[in-house]
């Protein structure tokens, strides 16, 4: 995000008259919208299970869990 894009998002949030903790999610939504129009980029939602795959131990745990599907 460029500086001016970030400033615009913050200004939009503040124009509502307050800045609450929930508004931080709005930053993520705005960033998603900005990048959704760029061709060649696909948004991938990363859930906690996917994150656990990182690292050798994470990969082993994930493979153990998927073993039944891999061998079938």
């Amino acid at each position, binding site marked *: 995000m*460029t*500086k001016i894009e970030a400033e615009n998002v913050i200004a939009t949030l*503040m124009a509502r008259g*307050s*800045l609450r*903790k929930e508004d*931080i999610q709005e930053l993520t939504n705005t960033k998603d919208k900005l990048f959704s129009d760029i061709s060649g980029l696909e948004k991938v939602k990363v859930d906690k299970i996917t994150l656990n795959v990182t690292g050798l131990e994470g990969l082993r745990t994930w493979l153990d869990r998927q073993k039944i599907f891999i061998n079938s």
Partner: protein
Amino acid sequence: MFKARIPFVSIKSMERQRVIEVLEELVHETGLPIYVHSLSHGVKDLRSNKYVNEDRSFPGGIDFAIQNISQRNNNTFVFTEPSDIEDDNIVSRHLYDCVIQSIERGGCIWIISTKGIWPQLQRLGMTLTLNPPNEEEMLSVIKECVLPYKGQIEIDWDENDFLLAATIPS
């Protein structure tokens, strides 16, 4: 790098104002003369913050730069909206000639653009890329936006929230 007097520098960035802010800091630190050309205002002297040439066209700005560079050493001209410099044409050759004049007089021509540049012109200098703000810069951007309004609007954010808010856009 600025003191190296590289005759032609192209800055790849879509954040024109952010580049100019950096140049303003540079002028403040070094006192070197830097002139910025824009299509809406012509040429502005960043040291005095005054407009010195009202010709707003890009070729008019190049003419002004050539004229100044031939009269004074070590001038730097920054063009914010260069057009038609991607290939071999009259405008890119005009700018090429301006850069050649700069080499002889210790001047520098900088352009801010996201487009390509005629290779013969590009090979007279170098290209820099200004990346979007990192987390640290974004944190200061967000704080500069929010903190002046503390007391005027309800702000629930603590330091961790500001840090998180800075991480998301960067």
